């Protein structure tokens, strides 16, 4: 037997492990997405029937139905944002795996007469997964928090100040409530699976540059990330065709602002040698210069969902279309930030 022939089964196993890791990351992406859109049927489908759940120091909850009931009771009617970061996943067998995730969550219950009620949390999940009938499911779930902050009681301003009109109009837009389930299948079909997985990586990096260049306001580099016929749809009518028009619009919108954009939990599917689609959770933070007279802050923090298509043009993946909608949109507090960081002695 040649070396190459001996290597083939090993390579197949390695590719399978990469596919399993992708499937588990996308399982968790759907976990966050169905939780935040209160799509409880989809949420229930992510767990094995006999899953076990440990939240903080509470007694464990046995069974997926009981856990979904508990979560629904705690969160129905709330606005929540859950973003997951930096998974560490170990495949223990073809049908068993372990993983840990870092969590940033933001949960708000309806205000009472005293003001806002809710929390911002910084947590960590430790989970196990089991493959059932070809699909990975969460089999055990444990969530602990590194820190939990109670939200300040003071209400946020109703309407954000500063920036273009579209930012204020966004308050009127229907927020994302129900997102059609995307099976988020791993790369499939014939072809070279390793190459398809590498394409997924390359597309993720296009999106990383998308966020980095817009925050750097490097418009020439940013323009290169889109196909010429790029189309954007910002929920409910706001629609731009053509990459040049889109870049000009964003450039105008962000003039004088400081922005931060972070993408999370991508689900990317390769549809053909030059076609793909994907979905991202978004956190953005846009601030325009403060009011010159009052010093009040102008800006917003948004939490959204982006659905995109990608096309490979001359060997390079580009963003061909995007649909953006927001789960929540917070005006910045009006009060100016302190001028210096107390406690920072370095």
């Amino acid at each position, binding site marked *: 037997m040649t070396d190459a022939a001996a*290597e083939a089964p*090993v*390579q197949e196993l*390695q590719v399978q492990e*990469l596919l399993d*890791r992708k499937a588990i990351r996308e399982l968790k992406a759907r976990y966050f997405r169905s939780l935040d859109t209160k799509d409880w049927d989809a949420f229930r489908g992510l767990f094995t029937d006999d899953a076990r759940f440990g939240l*903080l*120091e509470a007694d464990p909850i046995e069974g997926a139905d009981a856990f979904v009931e508990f979560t629904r*009771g*705690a969160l129905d009617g709330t606005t929540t944002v859950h*973003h997951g*970061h*930096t*998974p*560490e996943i170990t495949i223990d067998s073809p049908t068993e795996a372990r993983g*840990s995730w*870092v969590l*940033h969550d933001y*949960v*708000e*219950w309806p205000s*009472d007469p*005293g003001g806002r*009620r*809710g*929390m911002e949390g*910084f947590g960590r999940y430790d989970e196990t997964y089991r493959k059932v009938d070809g699909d990975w499911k969460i089999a055990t779930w444990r969530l602990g*928090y*590194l*820190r*939990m*902050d*109670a*939200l*300040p009681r003071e209400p946020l301003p109703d309407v954000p100040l500063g920036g273009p009109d579209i930012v204020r109009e966004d308050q009127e837009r229907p927020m994302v409530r129900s997102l059609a389930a995307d099976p988020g299948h791993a790369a499939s079909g014939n072809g*070279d699976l*390793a190459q398809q*997985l*590498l394409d997924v*990586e390359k597309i993720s*990096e296009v*999106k*990383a540059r998308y*966020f*980095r260049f817009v925050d750097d306001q490097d418009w020439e580099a940013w323009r290169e990330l889109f196909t010429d016929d790029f189309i954007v749809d910002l929920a409910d009518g706001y629609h731009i065709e053509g990459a040049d028009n889109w870049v000009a619009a964003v450039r105008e919108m962000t003039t004088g602002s*400081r922005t*931060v954009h*972070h*993408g*999370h939990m991508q689900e990317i599917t390769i549809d053909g040698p030059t076609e793909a689609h994907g979905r991202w959770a978004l*956190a953005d*933070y846009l601030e325009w210069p403060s009011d010159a007279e009052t010093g009040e802050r102008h800006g917003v923090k948004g939490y959204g969902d982006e659905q995109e298509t990608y096309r490979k043009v001359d060997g390079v993946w580009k963003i061909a279309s995007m649909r953006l909608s927001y789960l929540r949109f917070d005006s910045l*507090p009006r*009060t100016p*930030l*302190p001028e210096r*960081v*107390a*406690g920072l*002695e370095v």
Partner: protein
Amino acid sequence: MSEALQELLDREAIKELKARYFRFVDAKHWDGFREVFTDDVHVQIMDLEPIDGADTFVAFVREAVGERTAHHGHMPEIDFDSPTEARGIWSLADYVEWAPDQETGERRGFKGYAHYHETYRKVDGEWKIAGLRLVYRRMDPLYPEPLPEQILGGPALLEEATL
């Protein structure tokens, strides 16, 4: 092994290396944190004096990092220069808080937004961070008012949680 497969395996390994970096710094697990770096790591944070050597850097972080921290990494961009050398860019959101001012009770700390520019080296089959440059895009000081002491509105186990 195909080049594509090898690159995928290396990418996964580097992403999990950075995941451990974040997890260990927030858990103050300094032995684990030390292991993510090459012995001769070169570090540049903002325009501070550069730091050379993993032991020196770990001692610095241990001293300087806030008592309560959360570091979140996003959107890696990784490029390979050779089978044992790579470069990466990561976006960071961090939240660093020191004990409140003893006299006024005011909060001390910041929420930061930054980028890491890093290099990696494979040493004895394991990827390590060999160079780290951290540049903040913005750093918001915390508002001085103390946060409420209790989470309101949620299930009892949250209302009763120690913050």
